[in-house]
Each structure stands twice: as C-alpha cells, then as structure tokens.
C-alpha cells in the first residue's frame, strides 16, 4: 500500500475518532442540558399551577378543569393532586407516549428527572400537593434528531477531510515522486540530475543522488573525450585532421558492401609537385600547405550530405559520397576551390589533378582505387578538367532518376504497399537473439528488384517522404510483431524523429501490441547528435511506451557519447568502419575496448555492426562487445562461448 494511502487512512481514522468523541460529548452535554431544562420546567410549571390553584375558588370541577387544561395544552406525562392524607385527588396521565427515538438510544441517554412538586393552599388550609411530570419523549426525539444531524455532519466532514488530506498530501509528497523517479533512473543507470526539492529530507536525498549522477557524468565525459582523442590518433591524419588511409579505405569499402548502399561517388585529388615544394620550402611549410588543402577539401565536403574525405598518402586526397551525386559537378567544384586556394596563397603554386567516378554497390574499393591511381599517373601534370572514370551504366541510371518519376514511384509503392522489411539477426552471446534489425525495402518499377534504403533515401529526402516511409516501416513492424514472437528493430530517420505525426503513430500502435519491449527503435549517430534535444525527447517517448531504443552507425562522434548518460539508451551499434579487420589493428581494439566499457557504465549494450568473419568475431568478443550483426552473423552463430 502506498505511503500516501496509509497516511490518508490514518488521518481519516484519527478524524473519525476525534469526531466520534466530540459527537458523544456533544450529545451527552445536550442530554444533560435537556434534563436540566426539563427539571426546571417541571418545577416552574408545578409552582405556577400551584399558585394559580391556591388563589381560586376550589370546587372540584374548576380544579379538575384547570389541571386538564394544563395537561391537554402542554407536554406532560402526568399531573396529579394528592391530598394531605396522601390520597390521589386528581390525576391525568399520558399512557401512550409516542417517540421516534429508538429504545436503545433512550436507554443510552436516559433522562432521569424528578417531578415538580408544589403545595396548594386553600386559605390557611392545606388543599393538597401538586405533582407534575413532563413528557420526556419530546426530549428524546429532540436529542435523537440532533444526534443524527451531528453524525451526518461528522461523516461529511470526515469525507471532506479524506479528500482534502489526499490533495494536501499529494502536494507535500510530490517531491517524493521525483526522488523515486530519480532513484529508479539511477537503478537503470540513467544518470539524471533533478532540481532539489524544498522539503529538507528530500533535498538531502536528491543532493546526494545528484552528486552521484554528476560524478558518473564527468567520468563518462572524460572517458569519451579520451577515446575521441584515441580515435583521432588511430584513424585520422595528424596533419590535416582528415581520415587516414586505413580509415578512409575501410569506410569506403564498408559503404560499398553495405546493404543499403546503391550508388555513390569517389573523387581523388593528387598533388603533383610536393617533392619539389618540400625541397624548396622545407618539411614544415609543405605540411602547412598540405593542411590548407585538407582544410579546403573538408570545408567543401561539408556542403554535401553524407560525404567523407580522407588523406590517402602524401599528396593524395579522397572524397567519397554514400549518396548518388552528380560527380561531374562535384569534381568541378572541388577543382575550383583548390584553384582559388592556389591563387590566394603566396607560397609556391601546387599542381594537382582530379579524377572522379561513380561507384555502384558491390564495387571493390581496392580495384577502383588502383584504376584511378593508374589513370592519374598517366595524366599530364596539369589537367584542365577533372577526369571522369566512366562507368557505362551510370548515364542510363542517372537519366532514370528524375525526381518526378521517383515521386510517382514512391506514391505507387505506398499505395500498393509494395514495401517490406528485411531481417538481419543481431546475436548476443550464447546464441541468443537480441532482435532482428529490419531496414525498409521498397519495390519500384515492374522488375523484380527490392530497393534498399540507399537507393531511394536521397530522393525520398528531397521529396520529404522519409517520415512517411518510416511510418510504413513501423506499420509493417507492428504487423510482424502481431504475427510472431520475434523482437524487431526499425530505423528512424531524423525527419521521422522530429515528426509529430510519426510520434503519434508510435503512441497509437504501441497500445495494440503485447510486450512493447519487443520493438526497438534505432537512430543513426548523425541524426541523433545533430538534433540532440529532439533525440532526447524521442527517447523519453518510446521509453515511456515500454519500447527499446538505441543508436546505430556510431563511428565519429565519440566525444559526445558522454551525453547519453541521462537517456537510458538500451544499445549502441558501432559502425562497421570501426569493426573492419579489428583483429589486425591492436590500437583499434583498445579504442573499442574503452568504448565498450564506457557505454556499459551507462547501462548501454555495445553492439558491433558489419562483422565479416570469425576472426573479427573473436576479437570483438575479447574487447567486450555484447552483441554482433553483419554478413557473418546468422541465427545459429556461436559467439562468446569461450
């Protein structure tokens, strides 16, 4: 039983006891007062009547008439006149007293009073003694009525006090709910801080818990910063801050193999005369120049969504887009930027060539890189235009991808429900299935092909249809939850996360399913951290509905992972680029070990994406990854059964 309820009952019982006591005393007092008044009435009426009778002519008829009149007009039980010889001369008795008060009440508050007695004179002669008794049933009735009213009012007051005490207690104990909420959050390793309540005891408690939260928060923040530095050291070039050769190659290779990838773009920029510059201006100036070029490339790359850039070797820079882009235009823009930089700088002019190509899903990065390198090596020192490495299909494809056509196709797919969810198992240790990750597949055109997200996401984004598609995916997922006992996880785009419509949809659908914990939502690192407030709200919403929530493709924003300490996320999926060839990269292992430890401190399960083979798996097991997914992962995966 809750504390509030117990206190309320205690208060009500006390009030009832006090009220019952007051009630009894009140009635008892009334009863005494009434008895006193009746006694006086008896005495006074007896004296009055006796005075009257003493001063009249005393023939029997007159005396009897006067006594009768008094008896009949008033409330008497008995009026009698007794002669000096103790003989009853006249007597009037009410033999059928009528009372509404019940017998038990009358005996509880019995009114015992004496009759009024007075002498009647006839001149100097004694005529007789007048004995007069009032009818007590009147008093009982009155008392009964009063008591019933008092009981009624007592009950009303008790009821009101029960209600009032409830409201009041709720106000007093309101901070307690917050305190309990915080304690529970801490129990779930959600390290939140709340405002200190005014009540002293609660304040002390909350202060202590806030200190604990702050301590964990600062610890996690420091750790995430340290890991970020480590990440930069391992995966990023120290001169330009761009991805280093290994990381860029991994990122591109992972993207090209990724299920959701359809078409992208790769640009290579080669600085030609670095060795000359180095000779003339020295190592450090050359590095400055390289840094300027790197900065220019990074700034330009930020103009496009989903574009990464890296320094591949001495004077070679790579720019890769996961989305379909017009590579002619983009390459020309990069060339322009570098020419401007060249013009603006006072040092020796650098010479550069640019090559670009479209990339398709399944392309091998090493092959492409080799071909482009070959072409760059062939080219003259100062090519006038960027060189295109052609792909016969690309022109045809790009022609097809007109916006209007896409829209038509989206609408058709939505209308005909030409969508489905793929299922990729995410396995925990001991062959336990965490959930199936379910990316959306869209059926477009007459063909037999189901398109992955990468193929249409850019167009859907331009048409502002992503949240609609996410909504459809959610419908499908809920449908699947109804049909099976499996746990599922759906992707949520930044647009859907912000959309009120999508949130309302979640709320409605969650009411229909059993065990909402079977459904997980995952938001990409990019979407989550670029609008963290929205992400936080979204997390609170789905957690309140009992679902799971996590973050996917975590690779670059490690310094911000500390911010997750108060969210209570269920899992974090580390991007395949961090995982790739982990068994060959000891530094990467220690980075990942640190990441796993940190997120586990926050009660978050670390998961590895894109696991390709047993060696990677063994390595991941050793660094503390708790679940895995990727091409190598099947439902019967033996993982961590060491």
């Amino acid at each position: 039983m809750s504390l509030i309820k117990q206190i309320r009952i205690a208060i009500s019982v006390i009030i009832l006891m006090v009220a019952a006591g007051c009630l009894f005393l009140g009635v008892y007092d009334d009863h005494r007062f009434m008895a006193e008044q009746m006694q006086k009435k008896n005495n006074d009426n007896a004296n009055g009547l006796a005075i009257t009778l003493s001063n009249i002519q005393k023939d029997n008829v007159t005396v009897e008439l006067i006594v009768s009149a008094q008896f009949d007009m008033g409330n008497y039980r008995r009026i009698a006149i007794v002669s000096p010889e103790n003989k009853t001369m006249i007597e009037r008795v009410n033999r059928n007293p009528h009372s509404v008060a019940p017998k038990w009440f009358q005996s509880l508050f019995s009114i015992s009073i004496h009759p009024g007695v007075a002498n009647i004179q006839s001149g100097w002669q004694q005529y007789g003694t007048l004995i007069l008794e009032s009818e007590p049933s009147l008093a009982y009735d009155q008392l009964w009525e009063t008591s019933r009213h008092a009981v009624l009012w007592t009950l009303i007051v008790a009821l009101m006090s029960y209600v009032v005490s409830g409201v009041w207690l709720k106000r007093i104990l309101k901070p307690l709910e917050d305190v309990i909420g915080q304690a529970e959050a801490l129990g779930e390793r959600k390290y939140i801080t709340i405002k200190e309540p005014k009540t002293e005891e609660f304040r002390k408690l909350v202060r202590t818990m806030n200190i604990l939260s702050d301590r964990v928060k600062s610890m996690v923040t420091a750790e995430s910063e340290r890991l970020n530095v480590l990440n930069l050291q391992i995966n990023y070039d120290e001169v330009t801050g761009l991805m280093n050769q290994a990381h860029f190659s991994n990122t591109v290779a992972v993207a090209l193999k990724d299920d959701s990838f359809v078409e992208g773009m790769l640009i290579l920029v080669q600085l030609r005369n670095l060795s000359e510059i180095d000779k003339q201006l020295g190592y450090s100036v050359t590095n400055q120049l390289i840094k300027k070029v790197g900065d220019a490339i990074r700034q330009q790359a930020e103009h496009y969504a989903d574009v990464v850039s890296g320094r591949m070797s001495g004077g070679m820079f790579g720019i890769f887009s996961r989305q379909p882009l017009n590579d002619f235009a983009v390459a020309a823009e990069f060339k322009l930027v570098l020419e401007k930089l060249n013009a603006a700088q006072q040092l020796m002019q650098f010479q550069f060539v640019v090559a670009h190509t479209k990339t398709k899903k399944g392309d091998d990065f090493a092959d492409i890189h080799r071909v482009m390198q070959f072409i760059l090596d062939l080219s003259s020192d100062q090519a006038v235009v960027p060189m295109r490495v052609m792909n016969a299909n690309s022109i045809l494809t790009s022609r097809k991808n007109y916006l209007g056509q896409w829209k038509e196709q989206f609408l058709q797919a939505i209308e005909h429900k030409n969508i489905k969810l793929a299922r990729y198992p995410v396995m925990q240790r001991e062959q336990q299935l965490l959930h199936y990750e379910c990316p959306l597949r869209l059926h477009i055109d007459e063909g037999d092909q189901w398109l992955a997200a990468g193929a249409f996401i850019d167009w859907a984004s331009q048409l502002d249809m992503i949240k609609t598609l996410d909504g459809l995916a959610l419908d499908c997922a809920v449908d699947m939850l109804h049909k099976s006992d499996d746990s599922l996880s759906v992707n949520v785009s930044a647009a859907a996360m912000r959309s009120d419509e999508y949130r309302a949809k979640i709320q409605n659908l969650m009411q229909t399913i059993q065990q909402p914990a079977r459904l997980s939502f995952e938001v990409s690192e990019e979407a989550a951290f670029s609008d963290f407030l929205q992400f936080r709200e979204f997390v609170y919403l789905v957690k309140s509905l009992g679902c799971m929530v996590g973050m996917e493709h975590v690779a670059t924003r490690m310094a911000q992972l500390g911010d997750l300490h108060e969210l209570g996320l269920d899992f974090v999926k580390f991007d395949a680029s961090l995982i790739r060839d982990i068994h060959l990269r000891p530094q990467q292992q220690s980075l990942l070990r640190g990441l796993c430890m940190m997120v586990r401190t926050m009660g978050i399960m670390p998961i590895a994406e894109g696991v390709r083979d047993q060696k990677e798996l063994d390595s991941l097991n050793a660094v503390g990854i708790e679940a895995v997914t990727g091409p190598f992962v099947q439902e019967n995966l033996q993982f961590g059964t060491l």
Partner: protein
Amino acid sequence: MRRYVSSSLTRIAASLCLALCVLWTHTLADDYVLAMLEKVRQRYGEEAYQNVMRLNELYSQLSGTSEMTKIGMINDFVNQHVMFVDDINIWGKEDYWATPLETFGKGAGDCEDFSIAKYTLLKKLGILQDKLRMTYVRARMSSGTLRAHMVVAYYATPNSDPLILDNLNFQILPASRRSDLFPVFSFNEQGLFVANNPNQRAGSPNNISKWRDVLTRMRQDGLE
C-alpha cells in the same frame, strides 16, 4: 481585705464557672450551631459570634422540649436578635434571600430572612418539614395599607389551623386569629432536589429560583 479576697475569689470562680459552662455547652452543642459558630467568627466578627453563642445555649435548652416550646423560643429568639432592615441596605440588592448564617452574621434581615432562619432552625430542631410552610401573605398594616409579607406557618396536623411565626407581630397566633394576613402561596422543601444535583451552583445564572439558591448556599456552607 478578706472581703476583697473573697470577692476576687468569687469572681475567679465565676469566670471559671463561665468558662466551664462555655466548654460544656460547646461539647454538648448541636453540630450545626458549632459549625455555624466557627464560620460566624471568621466572617462577621465577635458580636455576631456572641449572638450565635446565645443561639447555642438556646439549642441546648430546647433539646427534648415540646414542639410548641421550640416554636415559641425560636420565634422569639429570631425576632429579638435580628433587626428588620431592607435587603437593599444590608446586601445592596433589591431582594436577597439570606441564609441563617448570613442573617445572624449581619444581625439584620427582612421578612424572608426571618422566615428562612426560623424555618431552618426549627427543621434542625427536628420538626418535620411537612409541618412547616413558608407562606407568602398579603398583610394589612395597622395604617390600613397592604404589603407583601412572608411568614412561617406551623401545621400541627395536615388539616389543622396553622400557627403563624411572624416578625411584625411577635406573638404566635393561629391563622384564624390573624385576619390581617391573607395567604397567597406556601412552600417548603418538598420537591426540591438540591442535594441530588451536585452540579448545581449557588448564584449561577442557571439557578434563578431564590429559594433553591439559598438552599444551595446553605448546603455549600455545610449548614443545611
């Protein structure tokens, strides 16, 4: 010289005698009067004390005598030792019913106070209250004017002609010979249950009846 000695001896003897006598009467005296003696001396001083001392002597003389004697002696005693004064001059109140203690203490009272004192003293001497009635009477004065008055009537038997104890006419006469008095209403303690109600307080606003009030005060003094 010898004569002087003998006279002083006589005086000492007489004083001794008186002292013994006082002691004697003290020891024999009615508890009621004894209690009254103490209170009177405390409250009203020596003169009142002497009055009550005399009452004490009277009591000792009256024990065992006939009712008629008691009535006569008490009537005389009260009439002689209490001066008729209006209430307003004694108590500063319009109409105040005094207890015997108060009346003897002040040595003064009006017709109710006379009647209350006689009634109470006679009752204490063992006369049944049934035989005693305080009676409101209309009195015709010798000047011919009418005046409200109170006397005590003594009924030897319920139907007999009562004897009137009056402070205007000191002589005790049967009612039939008191044509100047016309009875209006009579009462005694019958039907009054003062003793039964311990919550009753003298002079409390609840207690309007003067008769009841004076009885209550007597009881509180322990002098009923």
